[in-house]
Every structure is written in structure tokens, then in C-alpha cells.
């Protein structure tokens, strides 16, 4: 199971939870599982969030693989000027 860590900025949408374990094979499955578990997080998942899988940051990468022993951080997406 991958270890999923949520940025503290997401606690209003997750009932305060910031850490969980999920059996997911890629980012799309991760977002689907999180959306089912935290309905208030769905809009953020749709447009606002990036992930770091084992230290590598990915934005808009639904097909990126997540290994069973991966550590995944979710945090706000970055853009710039």
C-alpha cells in the first residue's frame, strides 16, 4: 500500500486527516480513491493539486505510476508569472 500524505492546507476538506494508506496503481486511481473518501476534496483534485511521488513532483499526470511502497505527497499546484 502506498503511503499518502496530504498537505495541511487540505485538512478543511478531509476532516483533518493528513495521512493514509491506499492501494492505488497510478495518480488517477489515487484521485478517484481520495474523491470517494473526501467528497469536499473533489474540486481540488480536479484542478488544484500536484503530487510528489517518492520525491519527484508531477502536475497533471494522471497516468503516472504509483508503486506499492511509494510515498506520495499531495499539495497545491504551482504555476508562476
Amino acid at each position, binding site marked *: 500500500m502506498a503511503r499518502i500524505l496530504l498537505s495541511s492546507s487540505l485538512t478543511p476538506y478531509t476532516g483533518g486527516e493528513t495521512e493514509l494508506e491506499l492501494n492505488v496503481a497510478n495518480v488517477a486511481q489515487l484521485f478517484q480513491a481520495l474523491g470517494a473518501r473526501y467528497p469536499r476534496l473533489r474540486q481540488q483534485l480536479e484542478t488544484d493539486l500536484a503530487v510528489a511521488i517518492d520525491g519527484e513532483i508531477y502536475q497533471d499526470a494522471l497516468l503516472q505510476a504509483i508503486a506499492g511502497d511509494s510515498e506520495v505527497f499531495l499539495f497545491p499546484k*504551482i504555476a508562476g508569472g
Partner: protein
Amino acid sequence: MIVASGLKYQARELKIVGTRPLRPDGVDKVTGRARYGADISLPGQLIGKVLRSPHAHARIKSIDTSAAAALPGVKAVISRDDFADMAEEYAAAGELTINFRDVTRNMMAREKVLYDGHPVAAVAATSEAIARAALKLIKVDYEILPHVIDVIAALRPDAPLLHEEQYTEGVNPRPARPSNLAKRLEFARGNVEAGFAAADTIVEREFTTKPVHQGYIEPQACLASYSEDGQAELWTSTQGHFVFRAQCAKLLQMEISKIRVTPTEIGGGFGGKNNIYNEPLAIALSRKSHRPVKMVMTREEVFRATGPTSGGHVKVRLGATRDGRITAATAELSFQAGAFPGSSVAPASMCAFTRYDLENVRVIGNDVTVNRPKVAAYRAPGAPIAAFAVESAIDEMAKKLGIAPIEFRLINAAREGTQTYYGPKLGKIGYIETLEAARAHPHYRAPLGPGHGRGIATGFWFNIGNETTAALNINEDGTATLIMGTIDVAGGSRAAMAMMVAEELGIPFDRVRPHIGDTSSLGFNFITAGSRGTFAGGMACVVAARDAIEKLRDRVARIREVPLEAVLWKDGHAVPAEGSARQFAPMSLAEIAGQAGKTGGPIAGHAELNVQGAGPGFGAHIVDVEVDRQTGSIKILRYTAVQDVGRAIHPAYVEGQLQGGVVQGIGWALNEEYVYDADGILANPGFLDYRIPVASDLPFIDTVIVEVANPNHPYGVRGCGEVPIIAPLAAIANAVENALGIRFYDLPMAPPKVLQAIDEAAAAASKA
């Protein structure tokens, strides 16, 4: 589209990358041939002009355009009724996610006007004079409402409310009443209470910055032509023509394929040209008039109605031990979002303390709507505001502890593996190398003159990748035409891309000609923002070049009747692979290209990527100032910007980015600010009263390029455009404190404010 994170950095001998050839767009720019937004014209075009709100906040009771429409020469008039209302729908569009419900209301006011300059109607006429005359004939009946500009005032319970349906997002439970606080977010790590309890010294301060404009020299300008079969062409000065196409299609309810956007040369953007303004209006006017419509903003319109950056209020608290270790850090940032939610407070919150390896951190960000234009990104959006506060507090703490400013930062510096408070651990970064390079620079130890002061500050920005495409066509004579999808926002990225392609192909730089493709020539590209141009665009160009090389090898293998693995690409030639038993006569790129038509057809390389693996950038700045105690004027005597850019593909253009960012930061620190009168009307919408730095204000900006390669880019590129604007605000404030013994917590440090502070300090000293 594939996710491209597979190309890794490989150190190797380079022939072109790292040199300084002339930019491909240079001759056209210095001879006046380059075509910017306002230079594009079509036969029969009309001139479009916008009627803007004269009020900061008012309800629109009615709009009567009949007299304007009847004026001879007027061919179309549009207002809110010409656009479909939009439901809440979010999309990524640069700095932050946008909501199309807000975008359509910012483009053209619907129920209310929310700032001085908010568009209310637009006309297209056969001349600008007629268009202006027509605007005066439009009758708008307003119910004037109370307004609020200041971010702290907007947070008060009795503040005028911009959006009656706006309940603060990000708090539990949902507030009972709507407010101007659109969103609150909090990042936390560790236990700050315990951290402060462990501190020997605490610094706690509040800082404010005024809204400033990106200050690009070229005003927004576009030309639209809508044809009777429902196709639209748009020429515009933009940082992202694909994003503009998507947004225009959405707002005008058109299919994306029916809009073709050609980007013109861009006379500066800095984040301010990430967003549509006149573009959908021009298309709508063209659709209604059946004529091309050109719209060019005046400088006054640029100031009143396009996105400046936020004004901010930041509270900072730092705790540290006697030996210089920071034990806890907190900040609360409140940013003006303008008329609609979506300031840069989130990235500002995320980078406020990321230069430091901290156990206990809490950062709160407040996104606040006020009666000002909706803010837009501005070069490392929000980061300079956060860094002004944090780096000023860091400086004060270092002084209290008696530790040199760079040493204090080195004690606490983030490094590879540092856990950030917003999410992931940092990968390979060069903050320590940057600080060490600054410490080693002669400027750091040069003697100061009497009354002079020296300041240090540092900056961090994330940098990004995102969707990027490129095509590389091998021409019949062995030259190459590179079609890029990322806008060259005048920083010279076309040169950098061509250099990387030339390096890959093994041919001279001037045999690769780069062009920016229109939206019909390539797949989707994200805006040029987030310092991604040379990083992500370069990645696409390298992938396209390697794709072309594979096809070249394959062609030679078939021409020479050898296996593919027997063909090596080296120095612009297909040669026998080392150790291969199958020898053959090498072929140059020109020879292969010359035969291409008869050996299988043209050869081209392509890349369609979602680029990942951006490498964060860090900068350290040293500045010397002199303060005129008679006038309060601050003179920048010497400035050195040190930055880790990963790899400088074209060092001269990297230096230019560093210098440009510093200059904009100097303006933000010393002079620039939006000034509103009591009615919420912008009082200084022009460069005479809104003072940006000019050459005579500035010394030569010295630069030091540090190169800690980004492991996720074939040439090690991180990106460099945004970091240099982050540190100057605090560096200059720290230098002024060093010179005067007076610390400024409010920007800009304009002469009247400085003089007043000097007088007050003198009065206080004489009393003592």
C-alpha cells in the same frame, strides 16, 4: 501526450550550449521590423474601444447603447447581453485556477462593476475618434455602492461586500455570513508553540506592500477577424496563445478548432499577459460587425483594468537559539485578490520559508477580494511580498544574534532532502552553493562609504514544466526549422531552444531557425510562466531533435543497407557506430536531407509532452545603498545577484533575466505603488505618476550564475526568470536599515516616507 520525466541530465562536453550567439529575433527588433500586437492590421478593420466603469463599486441598473449604435461609423456595440453567463467552472490558467463565472464578469461587467476601469460595454467603429464618441453616448445607470481597497479594511466585519454569495472557502465550519475573505489556507509542520518556547530570541513584525503593476512596455493589443462560416482568427500579444484560444472559445461558446490564435512579438508580460482582456471582446465585435476589429489598450487602461499584483499585509514571527538555529517560524499573509478571488497568496505562503530547513512552521494565507482590478501573476507571484517580510525578519534576527547575514542563512539553509512545510521533500537544489558564491563575491566584503548601507536577502521559486510541444523540420539543404509552442516572452528563449537543437544535431547554431507556431501548427502548450520556457520548451525541443535523429539514423541505415544499430549520430553526421562490423561512408545532415525526398520523404522530429521534473531555483542578492538625508531619496550604488539556474544555456540572456528581475524589484521597493483616491479611483494610471526605474536610476547589475544541474533536464536547466525579483525588496530594506538604523516595514520606500522616518528618528534622538 506523454509524461516526460525520463530525460536525465548527463554531463558532457558541449560546443554550443553555454556560448553567447546573437538571438534570432534580434535584428528584427532593433530595426523595427518585429511585429508587436498593435502592428498587425487587416484591410477594412474597425477600431474597438471599451467603456469602463468610473466607479469603484456600483450596481448596474441599466445600459442603453441605442444612441451609440446609431452614430454613423459605429458598426457594433456589445455589452453583458452579448455574452452567455457562465456557471462556476474551474480551469488552470497560469498563476492560479480560474473560475469562468468570474472570468466572464471580469471581461464584461454583469450585475455590478467592481473596480474603476471595469469594462461595461464596447464599440467597434470605422475610426478611433468615432469609437470614442460612441462610448460617450452609452448611458449606464449606476447605483453607487460603498467600496473597499485596503486588504485589512476588507477583512473587517462591516466592510463593503463585493460578492454577496462569497463564503470563505477553506474553513470549518462554513461561515454563517458571506465576506470578502474568499479563501483561507494553512500550511503547518511540527509544533510552533514548542519551537518558540525553545527560542532564546524572538522577532515579530508586520509588513505591508502596495499593489504594483508588471509594467510591460507594450500595452495589450489584439486584432480579431470573424468570418461568416464561424471561424475566427486572432492576433494578440500574449504569454499563452493556446490558453487564450481555449478561454475565448469557452466565453464565446465556440469550438476550439474554429479559433486560430497567432502570437505577435511581445513587449513584456511578466505574468500580466497570462490573461485575456480585450480578446473575446474583439472577436465578439468582429462577429457582430462582420469586419476585423483591432483593439489596443492605452497605458491608462492597462493600469486601470489589467492585472497588477496584490498589495499585501504579512505578519511574521521567528524564534531562534543563541547559536543561530531557527526553532519556529510563523506567518500570516493577507493578499488583495482584486475584484475576484484568486490572488497569489497560496504560492507566496508555500515559498515564504522554503529557503530554510525548519522543524516548526505555520503559514496562513488569506485571499481577499477588494475593489481593484483582478490581480494577475507577476514574476514569482506573491513571493517578493512574502520574502520582503521574512527576509527582513531574518536580517533583524541575525543582527540580534550577532551573526553575519549569510552565515545565519547558511546555518538554517534548506538542502537536498529538506522536508518542506507544504508537501514534498526538496530534491537536488543549490541554495547553499548560491549563498557560498555570494559570500565569496568581492562585493560582500568591499568597504562601505560613509552613510552607505549593505543588505542581503534571498529568494526561492518552484519553477514548473507542464504541457509543451515542438516540431523540428529538417529542410532539404540540411538546415532545420524549429516550431516552438512556448512564447518567447522577450527573454531570448528562441535562441536557447535553437542552441539545444543545434547541440543535439551537431550543426552550427545559425543553421537552426526557430519560430513560434500559431495554435493550428502544434498541439496545446501551457503559457510561458513559472520559469518554464527554457526548461519545458527546451525539453520538447531536445525530444524533437532526438526524434529527428532517430529518423535520420533509420534513413541512413536503409540507404547504406546496414542495421540501425550500426549507425551513430555524431557532429552532424551519420557515422559507423564504434566497434561495429558494418562500416559505411558517413553521411552529413545536408546529404541525408538532400536525398530525403527520394529515399522515403521529408524528415521531422516531434515532441508532445507534459514536462515534469522542474528544478527549484534560489538566489542571493547583495545591495549597497546611499540615502540622501536631505531628500529621503535612496540611491542603489552597487547590486550583485547570485542565482542557481541549473545550467545557463545562453549565459547572456540568463544574466539579462537576473538583471531585469532585480530592476523590477528595485522599482517595487523604492517607488512603485497604485494610489487610489477617496472614491476608489486610481489616481496615477501613467508612467509619469507611477514611477518605474529607468537606466539613470541604476548601477550596472552584476550577476553570478551558479550551476547546480537539474537532474531532470538533459542540459540541467532549472529556469531563471522569476527568482531574481524575489530578494530585492528585502535586500534594499535591509541595506537602508544598515545605512540609517531605521527599518522600513512598509513599501515603497519613497522619498517622502524615508524623509519622514529620518525626521522622526532625529526628533526621537533629540528628546532622548
